[in-house]
């Protein structure tokens, strides 16, 4: 199970915090600080797994992280998750963000924190991996966004109509997009 998903920037500023296990507010902040402290010390050429943060419990837990440009994506998981599997899940999540925000950068995460949460909800639900197919995730998010564009008009529409919209879009999705390791592009300003 995934216990927490933390995204923070190179300076430790939290950009997205999602806990799937209850921690008190101050504990959460402490976990973020400690995790940042652990992760930020590591070079880019070392492994992406970390063990034994003392806050999110002991030997059973692992931090699996990826570093993209200015952002750290950290998943805190227990032993029931596959290390490499989660590592690729982070990749899927970031690729999805990239697709939804068209060249995602840190600013997108700041100003559209809620949207990032919605995307994440389609990937991980209550600590369990829900969907690993990027196209499927994007489709789900887009169905919801359509609702936004029509200013709630569609939400009142019968369910069949909504699913029709979704089904209409789905088959057109390109398959097997291989983006490779993308780097989140950031404006050519100082690192955020």
């Amino acid at each position, binding site marked *: 199970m995934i216990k927490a998903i933390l995204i923070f920037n190179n*300076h*430790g*500023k*939290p950009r*997205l*915090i*999602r806990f799937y296990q*209850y921690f008190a*507010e101050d504990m*959460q902040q402490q976990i973020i600080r400690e995790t940042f402290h652990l992760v930020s010390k590591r*070079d880019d*050429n*070392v*492994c992406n*797994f*970390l*063990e*034994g*943060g*003392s806050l999110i419990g*002991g030997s059973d837990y692992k931090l699996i992280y990826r570093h993209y440009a200015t952002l750290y994506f950290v998943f805190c998981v227990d032993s*029931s998750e*596959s*290390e*490499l*599997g989660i590592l*690729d899940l982070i990749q899927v999540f970031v690729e999805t963000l990239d697709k939804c925000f*068209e*060249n*995602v*950068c840190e*600013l*997108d995460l700041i*100003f559209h*924190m*809620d949207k990032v*949460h*919605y995307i994440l*909800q389609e990937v991980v*639900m*209550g600590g*369990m*991996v*829900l*969907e*690993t*197919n990027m196209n499927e995730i994007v489709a*789900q998010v887009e169905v*919801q966004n359509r*609702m936004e564009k029509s200013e*709630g008009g569609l*939400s*009142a529409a*019968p*369910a069949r109509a909504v*699913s029709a919209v979704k089904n209409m879009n789905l088959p057109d999705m390109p*398959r097997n997009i291989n983006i490779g390791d993308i780097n989140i592009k950031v*404006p050519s*300003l*100082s690192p955020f």
Partner: protein
Amino acid sequence: MSDVVEKTLTALPSLLSLDSQPGAAKLSSTSKLGNLIRGITELTSKHEEEKLIQRELASIKEQVSSPNTSMRQMKELMVRAIYCESLGYEASFSYIHAIKLAQQGAGLEKRVGYLAVSLFLNENHELLLLLVNTVLKDLQSTNLIEVCMALTVVSQMFPKDMIPAILPLVEEKLNHPKEIIRRKAVLALYKFYLIAPNQVQHIHNKFRKALCDKDPGVMTASLHIYLQMIQENPEGYKDLTASFVTILKQVVGGKLPIDFNYHSVPAPWLQIQLLRILSFLGKNDQSVSELMYEVLDESLQRAEMNHNITYAILYECVRCIYTIHPKSELLEKAAQCIGNFVLSPKINLKYLGLKALTYVVQQDPKLALQHQMTIIECLDHPDLIIKRETLELLFRITNAQNVMVIVEKMLEFLRVSTDDYTTIDLVGKVAELAEKYPSEYRQEKGRFSIFYNEWFIETMNTVFSVGGDMMQPDIPNSFLKLLSEGFDCVEDDRKLRLFAVDSYISLLHGEPGKLPQRFLQVISWVLGEYSHLREELEPASVLRLLEKLLDMKQTSSETKNWVLMAMTKLCVGGASVSVAQQVSETYISSMDTVLRQRAQELQHFGQDSEVRTRVLPRDTDLEPLEVDSSLSFLDGFVSEALAAGAAPYKPPHQRQEELAQAKALSLEPYGLSLPISMSSCSIADRQSPTPLSMSSGLSGDSTDLSHKGGSTTLKLDGVKRVWGREGYLVQRESVEETAQVEVPSPLRSPSQQAEANGSHSQTPTQTPTPEPEQEKQQLAASLFFGLSSQSSVCLMGKSGPTSHRFRRKAKGQGSISGATEQTSSSLVSSPSTVDNLLCDNLLDSNIPSELSVSSSKQTSELCHGLTTANGACDIETKLNDSDIKGSDPSLSEDSGLVAADSEDMNPHEDPERPKDLCLSSHLPAELSGLCHSEISPLCSIQSLDLSACHVQKDDSLVLVIFIQNSSDSAIRQIPLDLDSDELEVSRVSDSPVEDVRSHDVAVYQYSLTVKRPSVHVEVVGTVSCPVGTPQTVRFSYKLPLTTFIRPLTLSTEEYGTMWLAFSHDTKQNLTLISDDPEPLTATLSVLKRKLQLHVVEIIGMEGILACRLLRDRPCLMHCRVHAGALAVWLRSPVPDLPDCLIYHCQRALQED
């Protein structure tokens, strides 16, 4: 650091004005959130940020509570509140509005509301109850998105008690036409299963339906549930193995739609889940494992190494292959795979390769050998995580040969590690290794033991100074225990202690201020206890060194206690006494009461050396401390106080109750309360003069806690026995012992020192070689030494014992030989000890002395006379017939021995038998129906003959002593005293204290409980005859420990929890009964029959048994058939119990 962040953020406003940037372009410039973020970026300090956010929160608060705020505005406000919360500022006022938004909002507003709720609240938050109705409504909605939102929030957090309210609706969703809804419903149910497993029990078949869903996504979701359930109970789902294998086969074979591919690998996450499930199912189950060999093989072949995700699948495959019942072909392939991982240049794969190796070496230590050079390289890897993983691997392959090299590597790592968690973990491992191997090392390399001592002490020094005050407290404890208990060789122990003293003295001469407190405590204890071993060392100089510790600022008061205690032990001779006096004067007025107490002790013991040697004797054997927890030695004092009018003691709860009662109005004038209780007490105490009384009923209280559950006994190993039953104990042996220890000539120790130095220089690791490659190979040779030869491999499995560190002295053996010696030398006849278990007679080897024979002759003759005189005996004979038959063979055998021993004596078979009969007829009525041991003569004094037997009751063991009076006059008040080192002896209260009439028998009953387990226990007694010339005779009665063992009925689950809780254990291989078709069952049934063990369960080649030592002290046994022998592992909370029990198991099996 936040300053830096803020400064870099000042660049943001200029950035935001650039509309060309796609991310920023989506922002409306008037957005309030945008303004807030912009505002924050312009700030320069944390303090200003705080002020701004507080202002922002105040404004949000005002707006949300205004009735005019529309839902749309509310949505925007909520996002701002979320933003503030994520920065760590509390916005609790908005929680209720978030719920309101989720409830009343439409579409997107609802979505924000749900998001805010799931971010703000937790499962236990009371406001969550308000959400239940909303969720209910949305689950029934026709809008799919609303249903999805409700399911998402439910799986994030939902109050446990409210699950039944929505459960039917969620279950219904399992049949929903849309697959996304079904998937989310499955995950929501999984969440319910996690937080309240019993509430979803009834829908297990629906999970099966989900597993068979036509949509692979729903099936994948259901695997989460199955993974969890199978992990908890693999037995229950074995029937699904074939289904999982089929699914995996289809997935691997590419039968899934291409949508499920990820980097052209078919559904990799699904494969990973399935492989995990299969490994749980196939563990220790050959038939199930055979089902999956084929698909595992296919998975291995299909997974081409082209992407990370295929490695993920391979890794799971390898783990699965090594978890399930082994198949050699697959193992070979898996081993090759591990090789690819370990040798991979990609660091993540190397990490996983090491992890896999660590997992695998428990089964196949040779695999580590193949990759030894890679492992050596990993030891020097720049990444600390890789290094640590390598050390973990080395920890698993440690044996007596390579322990030093591995520990050295670990210490190297510890010196550079900065992570607390790693340090604590590794320090524990080093200490474990250092303490685990001493005895084995000594046996194999006897002459290196001095070198070993040095290494051990130095290693522990590093452990203490690096581990500091963070490490587990049991490390210093077990170290001190090891030092004080020692190993099997006295001389070695002395050297070890001497080396510790030398090492600590030199440390104290250095910079003691840098040492952690725990280490200082260890140092002061060792110096206090053993510094006299180094004779040229003046106690005064040690005291001065210790005094320096007291003066240091950072020394904690706990450490000061240790130091003062050490000083108390040391202050001998003029110079040291004056130092001690100085110190004690400083601390005698300390604010800390404990320190003050220690200072007092130091002062008084310093002045009076005689008292000191009595209280703190040197080098007494560490006999387990006898603690009279009933404080019966205070009985006299208490009775005096009671007689003087003191109120009897009441336990606190009783006092509380009475206080509460006292508060109510007493309507009865002049109650009789006090005088009654006082008089009853004073009567009681007059009547308990027996020094044996175990629980002093005197204290007038109702608390009898310490004796009820033996598990509450204090653990006082290593503490000198100072107080005993009689009060202050005078240590008799102490003088002799000290003399003995101090004998070693000063000439010897320097030479040994030289030898130590000599051997130290011979260490194989110290020799440097110029070529680094050669160095590595040498390191490899030393690291993997012993791994290749199968016999000496000693792997530390994960499940391996951690407390099984030191081999204890074989106390059981010693006590047996001691006891036999005593029996043969004592003038008094020894009793024939018969293991009478369920009327099985196991004849203990004992040779009755001539005296005993004559005495038994006397008694038997007398008894014979009695039988003829007393017709009642004949009736009893019939009643007890079964008992007698049981004990008959041993009786005749016994008398045969007698005949062989003394040829000139006539055999007494005929009278012997009626004697036993007639005595057994005197057994008290409540015991006569129970199985009792053979009645054996104890001793005779003038006209009195004493015999005894023991009766096993369910919850106790009763010792019955018969006193026969063969004289013509009645004898009054025979003083009979019983005592035992290992047993608590207490007079059974209702047995009459009577006069022994002429030619009659008096019966005394004592109840026995084990204080300290030993292979055989012995009751020693004295009896004196009040008639004629005063004469006292000693006698003894020996019983095997098995008479105190009773079966303990418990379930496997209870067994499991108890097993983990017990600390004392022992392991041994016993012989199996091989001529039976089912050797394990046969062997266990022998143990069950002979030792009254309860067989809890037998699974395959393993069995678990349980028993209890009277009263209620459990001992658990785990047996496994291994290589034709029975590997037995005993655990108990009682020290020595496992050792004693294993001895009896061994005997029971040998005799069978």
